[in-house]
């Protein structure tokens, strides 16, 4: 995804001269290196200094520029939190904070590099928008939107590398703020965001053998929420499954459950979210997700699918 991000942003930057990358010592691999070479004045490396990364981005946006503050998700959002709150959100500036490798992606690097609660934190700040694309194709749409149209601060949570595409030109059109149906189905639907959508497709394939069809929605915009669409989803489906590479506190499952409760949803909701816990464990991303109870095998056994 980071290559798709860099490649797309580079293409946008050719057309839009106001686009800047403000990076905090992140290696400019692939297309980001092309951006840097082609537009050295619009690629600012602030070094290992995330607070000033946000300050500089704010200053640029105050002068009508369109900066993308770019580094690993934990450092992009947590370290400079107050700068994001005051400089970007309070001043409502069109800056995109790109959190690379969100969730449990950096599975071998330990808890300091995991982003378990980023959506929850970002959601609580007024004016903040949040986009978490499910695959490189969706990311391309999101970057185009952020490069030309967005009006306020956005936290863009992306994966790292090797993510497969689950959407294509036949899928419903991507639109900011829309809950996007990426697979048709009835009775049961899966709501998810980010590359963990791959588990939803595994489940769909598995259940298809029994004649069941699972609908899958990419909840790529986590703020603002399209509640009208959510209402319709709750009307159309009697079972909702939420799968997220994010804490059970304040993420998509919290959004769905609180809305369901306020609107007296009669159906069943089952969520698979990261536990409110630091594990101090390593391995593959799948290994970490399994500790949190989020693997295809663990989810497929859940009685909600009976």
């Amino acid at each position, binding site marked *: 995804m980071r290559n798709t991000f860099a490649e797309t942003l580079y293409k946008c930057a050719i057309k839009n001269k106001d686009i800047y990358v403000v990076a905090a010592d992140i290696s400019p691999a692939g297309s980001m290196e092309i951006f840097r070479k082609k537009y050295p004045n619009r690629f600012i490396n602030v*070094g290992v200094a995330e607070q*000033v990364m946000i300050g*500089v981005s*704010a*200053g*640029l946006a105050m002068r*009508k520029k369109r900066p993308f503050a770019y580094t690993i998700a934990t450092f992009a959002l947590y370290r400079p939190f107050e700068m994001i709150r*005051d400089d970007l959100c309070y001043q409502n500036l069109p800056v995109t904070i790109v959190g690379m490798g969100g969730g449990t992606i950096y599975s071998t690097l330990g808890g300091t590099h995991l982003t378990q609660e980023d959506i929850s934190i970002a959601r609580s700040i007024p004016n903040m928008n949040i986009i978490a694309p499910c695959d490189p194709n969706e990311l391309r749409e999101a970057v185009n939107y952020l490069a030309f149209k967005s009006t306020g601060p956005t936290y863009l949570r992306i994966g790292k590398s090797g993510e497969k595409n689950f959407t294509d030109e036949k899928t419903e059109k991507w639109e900011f703020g829309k809950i996007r149906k990426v697979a048709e189905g009835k009775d049961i639907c899966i709501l998810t965001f980010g590359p963990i959508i791959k588990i939803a497709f595994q489940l769909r394939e598995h259940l298809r053998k029994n004649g069941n069809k699972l609908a899958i929605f990419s909840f790529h915009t986590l703020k603002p929420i399209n509640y009208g669409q959510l209402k319709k989803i709750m009307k159309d489906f009697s079972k909702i499954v939420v799968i997220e590479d994010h804490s059970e506190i304040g993420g998509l499952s919290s959004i769905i459950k609180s809305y369901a409760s306020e609107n007296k949803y009669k159906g069943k909701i089952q969520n698979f979210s990261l536990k409110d816990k630091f594990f101090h464990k390593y391995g593959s991303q799948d290994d970490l997700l399994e500790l949190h109870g989020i693997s295809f095998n663990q989810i497929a056994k859940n009685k909600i699918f009976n």
Partner: protein
Amino acid sequence: MKSNIFLESKKRCKIFRKRILELSQKVSALHVGGSFSCTEVMDLIFNIISTNAERNLFVLSKGHASILQYTILEYLNVINKKDLENYCKKDGFLGVHPDIGNPGINASTGSLGHGLGMVAGIAIAEKKTKNNIYSVLSDGELQEGSTWEAIMLIPALKLNNVIIFIDNNNLQSLEKTSESHPNLYPIEKKFESFGWQSFKCDGHNTEKLYKLVKNKKKDKPLAIIAESIKGYPVSFMMHEPIWHYKSPDKIEYKKAISEIDSL
């Protein structure tokens, strides 16, 4: 002719300080001490050295001196009397800290250590113009790590259009800066070693401050350490931490006005 400029500045600074005291009789949420310490610096920026375009780039990093910026903006007819008198009131829009979108205010500050990072971003955007970016920081802000991130970055990016003033009044909410952080000094040497042009100067002497700005090197950003006195020139306010927040009562008010008038 030149000396007239500075006589005028002296007169204006009296007006600004008296106006702040006048407002202090209506609302209590004022930072008199920290506004009085940088009055000459702010007058220099707003009324002597900056162009209209540059005033629209100014960042008051020590946001708690906003009452001083408002009085200057009132003097310049950017904000009106009624709006200033609604300061901190339900129907007003001017608060204790500057807020973006208000007339003449370019950045929302208040939390210390944010201003210089934004200044760096503005300076990058303004690189192709002739504009200088001015900012006023407090000496207390030099305890924020984020300030040093920006101090290191600005010369590295050759943002030679940045001119900042450190209001070095040596007094914070709790104690003297020189007592809590004795190794901060000499401040100008620290800026120099980070790639800035830097000087120490009497923060209440507009003429000297002016000369330093005029002699700025073209190939470096400039940081002026303005040696100032919190509460200056009111005898009972100077060096007293209580005047960081406190508003004078009626007797104190009269005494303060007469001391300023007699200068």
